[in-house]
C-alpha cells in the first residue's frame, strides 16, 4: 500500500487551495501509522461486507443484524448476549481497547469483484481495521486475499469450502464456520446409523469448487463406510430446472441421492427430486434417501415441506439448548422478533472473537491480534469447547447433524438436531488440505 | 470497343422469367438509356451490373473484365458507381462527409485503417469534396446533416458522391423519380453537365422527357427482353415500342 506518492504534496497544496468549503480528503489528514488504519480517535471501525443484493441477500441481511447486535454488545448496550456466556472475560462492555466500535457496511453482491471493491472502500476510505462477512466461498477467498495484501484482519462469514482455510488460507484470515471436510466426517456415522452400510449413492454436484470439495468429502467418508458411488454428476450453477439430472437417478440402482448444492440450487434440486418421488421410493428393498450435506435453515424454508426427513449438517441451530445459544437466541429474538440463522451466529461469533482478541492483545495490529487468535481455546459461544487452530486459522468444534422436522411448530422450526458429532471425529491434520498461511501483514500505512 | 457488354443474360425468379436473353452494348462516353414498361426487368438488369444479383446465365463484361461473381464494393472499385431510385446517402453524416467518404474509397481502396490522421488534415480530399458539392449546388450546406435534405437535394448529393469517384461508368436508376418538374429539370441540366465531361452513363428512366433530353442511345426492354435499340429519334417511331407502351401514351 503506497499512500505516499510524489504527487501527494502537490495535491495537498491544490486541495488546500480548492479546499475552502469542503473537508480535506481523509487520506491527506492521516498521520503515520504503525499498521493499516490504526485507529487514532475514540472509535475503531469494523467493516461488515455482506451480500445485500442477489440470491443471498436475505442471508446477508441476517448477517448484518448479527453484526449490529454484536457491536451493541461490545459497546455495552443491550443485554450483552453471548458476552455473558463467553469463556473469555476480556471484553468489559466498554468497547475494545478503550475505543467504541463503529462500523461501515458494504454489498458483496456475492461476486468476487464487487466484494473486493466494497472491502477496498471500507479499508481505503472508511478506515476499517477489520473486514468480516460474506455468504460464499468464492467471495470469502477473494476478500481474504485482499485483506492479506492490505494488512487488515479478515474474519470470514459463511464459507464452507475447504479452500478458505486450506489451499487458499492466509495469515490474516480466520474462519469460525465449518467446512466440507467436517460435514463429511460428521454426517458419515449418522448416515450409517440411519441407512446402514450397504448403500449406493448418486451425487448431484454444483459444478464449481465448493461443490467438488463437498462431493469429495462425502464420497470419501461414505465409501469408508462401505457405500458405493453410482455416479457423481456435475450440474451447472443456477440450473433452475434439474429434471434432466434427476431422471437418470430413478433407474440408476442408487438408493441415496446426495445433493451437493447450496442456496437456490439446493431449494430447486431438492423440491424437484421430491416431486419425482425420490423421497418415497423403494430401491433394492430399501427406502430411498436424500442427503443435503450443507443445510441452511433460511434456505431450507424455501424448499417448504420438501425438507422433511432430509439429513444434512449445519454449523449451528437456534434450537440448541446450551447457555451460549440460549443467550444469543434470546438477545437476537428480542431485538428482531425471530430466531437467528447459522449465518447470523457465525458472524456474531466472529465479531466477538475479533474484539476479544484485540482486547487481549491490547492493540489492533493484525500480527498481534492474529497471534491472540491462534490457538485460542474458548467456550460459551454456542458450539461447545472450540479452538482456533494455529496451523490453519480454522475453528474446530462439534458439528451438528440435522434433519428436516416432520412436525414444525413455526416457520422457523424446520430442522431438528439429530446428533452433535464431537470435535474429535471431525478433526483432520492441517497439512492435509495444503496451502500456506505465510506471514501476517500489517500493511505499510 | 464497348465499355459494358451484356450478352445472353437470363435471370429467373421461381417461375417468372425476369430477363430473357438480354444483349446490350454501351459505348464509352455515351449516355445509354434503358426504358420499358413497369416490370420489364430494368431494375433487375441494373442489379446484375452491380453485383446485387447474379444472372443465371450470360456474360456481363465491364472494360474487358467479367463483373459476374464480384461483390458490389469490388465492382465499384473497378469504376462503376450507382445512383439509386431512392437516394442512398449517409443520413447521419454531414454533406461534406458524405462526399469525402467516396473520395477516400477511391484513394484508399476497399479497406484501409486510416485511424490516426484527422479528417480535418485531409485537405486535398476535403477540397475535392467541396468542389463536387459546388458542382451540384450544395456547397452552402456542407455542414448540414444529410438526412435533413429534400429528396431532390439528396439526389444531387448522391450524384456528387458518385462523381467524386470519377467513375468510368455511372448507373442511374430513375434519377428523377418522384421529383417535381422544376427539380427534374435541374437534375437534367446537372446530368447534361456530367455527360459533357465524357462520363459514360446508363440511365433507367420512366420519364421520356428525361430520356430524350439526355440519351445518345436507347434500349427498350419489355417482358425481360430487348425489343429495340436505337438513337432516341428513331425509337420514338418504332412500332414495337409503341405497342409495348400500349399505344404510346408516354410518347
Amino acid at each position, binding site marked *: 500500500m*503506497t499512500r505516499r506518492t510524489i504527487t501527494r504534496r502537490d495535491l495537498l497544496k491544490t486541495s488546500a487551495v480548492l479546499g475552502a468549503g469542503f473537508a*480535506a480528503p481523509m487520506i491527506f489528514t492521516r498521520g503515520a501509522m504503525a499498521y493499516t488504519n490504526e485507529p487514532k480517535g475514540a472509535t475503531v471501525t469494523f467493516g461488515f461486507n455482506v451480500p445485500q443484493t442477489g440470491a443471498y441477500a436475505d442471508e446477508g441481511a441476517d448477517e448484518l443484524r448479527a453484526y449490529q447486535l454484536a457491536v451493541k454488545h461490545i459497546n455495552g448496550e443491550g443485554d450483552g448476549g453471548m458476552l455473558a456466556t463467553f469463556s473469555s472475560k476480556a471484553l468489559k462492555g466498554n468497547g475494545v481497547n478503550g475505543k467504541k466500535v463503529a462500523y461501515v*457496511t458494504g454489498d458483496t453482491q456475492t461476486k468476487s469483484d464487487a466484494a473486493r471493491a*466494497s472491502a477496498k472502500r471500507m479499508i481505503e*476510505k472508511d478506515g476499517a481495521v477489520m473486514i468480516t462477512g460474506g455468504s460464499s466461498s468464492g467471495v470469502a*477467498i477473494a476478500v481474504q486475499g485482499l485483506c492479506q495484501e492490505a494488512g487488515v484482519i479478515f474474519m470470514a462469514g459463511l464459507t464452507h469450502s475447504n479452500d478458505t482455510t486450506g489451499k487458499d488460507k492466509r495469515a490474516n484470515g480466520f474462519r469460525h464456520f465449518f467446512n466440507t471436510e467436517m460435514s463429511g466426517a460428521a454426517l458419515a456415522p449418522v448416515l450409517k446409523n440411519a441407512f446402514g452400510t450397504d448403500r449406493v449413492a448418486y451425487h448431484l454436484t454444483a459444478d464449481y469448487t465448493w461443490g467438488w470439495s463437498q462431493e469429495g468429502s462425502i464420497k470419501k467418508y461414505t465409501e469408508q463406510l462401505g457405500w458405493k458411488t453410482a455416479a457423481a454428476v456435475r450440474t451447472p450453477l443456477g440450473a433452475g430446472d434439474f429434471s434432466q439430472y434427476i431422471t437418470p437417478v430413478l433407474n440408476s440402482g442408487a438408493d441415496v441421492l446426495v445433493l451437493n448444492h447450496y442456496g437456490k440450487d439446493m431449494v430447486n434440486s431438492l423440491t424437484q427430486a421430491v416431486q419425482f418421488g425420490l423421497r418415497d421410493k423403494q430401491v433394492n428393498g430399501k427406502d430411498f434417501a436424500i442427503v443435503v450435506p450443507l443445510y441452511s435453515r433460511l434456505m431450507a424454508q424455501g424448499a417448504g415441506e420438501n425438507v422433511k426427513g432430509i439429513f444434512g449438517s449445519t454449523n449451528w441451530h437456534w434450537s440448541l439448548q446450551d447457555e451460549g445459544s440460549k443467550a444469543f437466541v434470546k438477545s437476537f429474538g428480542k431485538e428482531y422478533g425471530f430466531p437467528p440463522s447459522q449465518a447470523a451466529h457465525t458472524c456474531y461469533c466472529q465479531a466477538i472473537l475479533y474484539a476479544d482478541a484485540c482486547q487481549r492483545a491490547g492493540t489492533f495490529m493484525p500480527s498481534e491480534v492474529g497471534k491472540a487468535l491462534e490457538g485460542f481455546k474458548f467456550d460459551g459461544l454456542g458450539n461447545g469447547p472450540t479452538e482456533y487452530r494455529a496451523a490453519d486459522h480454522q475453528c474446530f468444534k462439534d458439528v451438528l447433524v440435522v434433519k428436516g422436522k416432520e412436525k414444525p411448530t413455526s416457520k422457523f422450526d424446520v430442522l431438528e438436531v439429530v446428533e452433535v458429532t464431537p470435535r474429535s471425529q471431525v478433526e483432520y491434520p492441517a497439512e492435509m488440505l495444503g496451502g*500456506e498461511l505465510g506471514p501476517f501483514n500489517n500493511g505499510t500505512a | 470497343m464497348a465499355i459494358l457488354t451484356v450478352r445472353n443474360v437470363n435471370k429467373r425468379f421461381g417461375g417468372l422469367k425476369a430477363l430473357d436473353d438480354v444483349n446490350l452494348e454501351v459505348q464509352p462516353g455515351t449516355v445509354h438509356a434503358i426504358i420499358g414498361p413497369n416490370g420489364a426487368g430494368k431494375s433487375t438488369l441494373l442489379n446484375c451490373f452491380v453485383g446485387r444479383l447474379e444472372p443465371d446465365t450470360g456474360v456481363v463484361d465491364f472494360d474487358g473484365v467479367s463483373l459476374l461473381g464480384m461483390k458490389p464494393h469490388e465492382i465499384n472499385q473497378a469504376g462503376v458507381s450507382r445512383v439509386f431510385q431512392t437516394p*442512398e446517402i449517409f443520413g447521419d453524416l454531414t454533406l461534406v462527409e458524405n462526399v469525402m467518404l467516396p473520395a477516400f474509397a477511391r484513394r484508399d481502396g476497399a479497406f484501409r485503417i486510416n485511424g490516426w490522421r484527422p479528417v480535418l488534415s485531409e485537405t486535398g480530399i476535403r477540397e475535392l469534396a467541396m468542389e463536387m458539392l459546388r458542382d451540384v449546388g450544395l456547397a452552402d450546406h456542407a455542414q448540414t446533416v444529410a438526412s435533413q435534405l429534400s429528396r431532390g437535394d439528396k439526389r444531387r448529393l448522391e450524384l456528387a458522391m458518385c462523381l467524386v469517384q470519377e467513375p468510368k461508368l455511372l448507373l442511374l436508376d430513375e434519377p428523377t423519380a418522384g421529383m417535381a418538374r422544376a427539380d427534374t429539370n435541374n437534375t437534367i441540366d446537372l446530368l447534361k453537365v456530367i455527360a459533357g465531361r465524357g462520363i459514360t452513363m446508363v440511365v433507367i428512366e420512366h420519364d421520356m422527357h428525361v430520356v430524350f433530353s439526355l440519351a445518345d442511345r436507347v434500349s427498350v426492354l419489355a417482358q425481360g427482353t430487348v425489343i429495340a435499340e436505337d438513337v432516341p429519334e428513331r425509337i420514338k417511331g418504332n412500332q414495337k415500342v409503341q405497342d409495348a407502351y400500349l399505344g404510346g401514351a408516354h410518347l
Partner: protein
Amino acid sequence: MIEKHSRRGDLLLLLGFALVVAFAPTIFEPIGGGYPDLLQKFAIYGIFAVGFNILFGLTGYLSFGHAAFLGVGSYTAVWSFKLLTMNVLPALVLATVMGGLFALFIGFIALRRSGIYFSILTLAFAQMSYNLAYSVLTPITNGETGLQLTHGDPRVLDALFGVQHGDGLPSTDLFGMSMSGWSGYYFCGVVLFAMFYVSLRIFRSPFGMMLRAVKSNQNRMNYTGINTRPYTLAAFVISGMYAGLAGGLMAVTDPLAGAERMQWTASGEVVLMTILGGTGTLLGPVLGAGVIKYFENIFSAFNEATLMDVFSFLPETLQHGAVAITGLFVGEGWHLTLGALFMLIVIFLPGGLMEGVNRIKALFRGGLRRGEVRRPATMTG
C-alpha cells in the same frame, strides 16, 4: 450525431480531461468518492466503455459479449504475473493482445450477422466462455475462486533478472513503483487518458468516419466501393483490445481474475454505461461508467446508522420516517435507485448524460445554436 469539432475544441477537451484525471482525488472527495479503489474503477471501466463505444457508438453493432474480452484480459494478466514477472507492462501488453485475438475470433464469426442476431451471437460466445471458465476450465481459470497469485509461481523473468519478492505474496509493480493505492490510480489514469486520446483520434479520423457511415447506411458503403466487414471487424477487435487492456488493469490493481467478470450481466453493464453516458459521444461512456460504479460503491454503503446520522437534524419521528424512506433507495436498495435512474435518463435525456451536458451548455450560450440538429433516431423495424 453532430459535433462541431475543431482542433482547439479537442485540445480543450483533452486538457480538461487530463485535469480531471489529475485532480480526481480532490474532486471526488466531497461526494465520498475520493479513494484509490473507486477512482481506479472509474478509470478502468472508463477505458472499457470508451473502447466499447468505438464499436457500438460508431458502427451501431451492439455486442452483448464484451465482458468476455475483459475476462480474458484479466486471466492473461494474472498468468503473466504468475509465470513471467510482477512487472505490469508485459501483463498489459499480453492482456491487450489476447483480448484482441479473442475479439478477432469471435468477431469473425459474429459479424457475419447484423442487428439482434449479431448481439445474440456475441452473447452466446461470452456465456459459453463464462460457463466454461466457472466449471470445466478451472485448471486455467481456478473457477469460482478466481485465478490468484501463489508462493510457488515460477515468475521466470523475475527469477532471470534477480528480482526479489518478500515473504508474503508479491505485489504488482512498474519498475519498482507499486500499483496499489494512489500510484495505482495514477497509472490507470494515465492509461485512461492515453486510451481516451486514441479514441479521440479514431473518432476524428477517416477510419472513424467510415465506421459512422457503416451505422448510417451499410448498403451505400458497399456501392461506394468499401468492404464493410473488415471495417466492422477492425472496430470489434479494437474495442476487444480496449476491453482486454481494461481487464489487464483490473488485474494490475488487484491481481485476481474471476469468471463472473465474463457473465452477461457484466457485458450488459458496459452497454448500460455507454447508453447512459451517451452513445457515440466521446465523453459519454466515461461518464456513464463513473455514474454506475459510483452508485454501486457509494450508494450501497449507506446503512441505517449512517442514515440516522444524515437525518439527525430532524426531530426524531421525522428522522425515522426519512430514514425508512431513503433506506429503500440506498444500502440494499441501491439497485432500485440505479434502475430508476436508467429509466429517468432515457425518458428525459434520450441522448444520455451527454445530452444533459449539451443542454446545459446550450443554456449558457443562450440557445443561439439553432443550427444544431437533434440526433436522428436510427430505427428500422
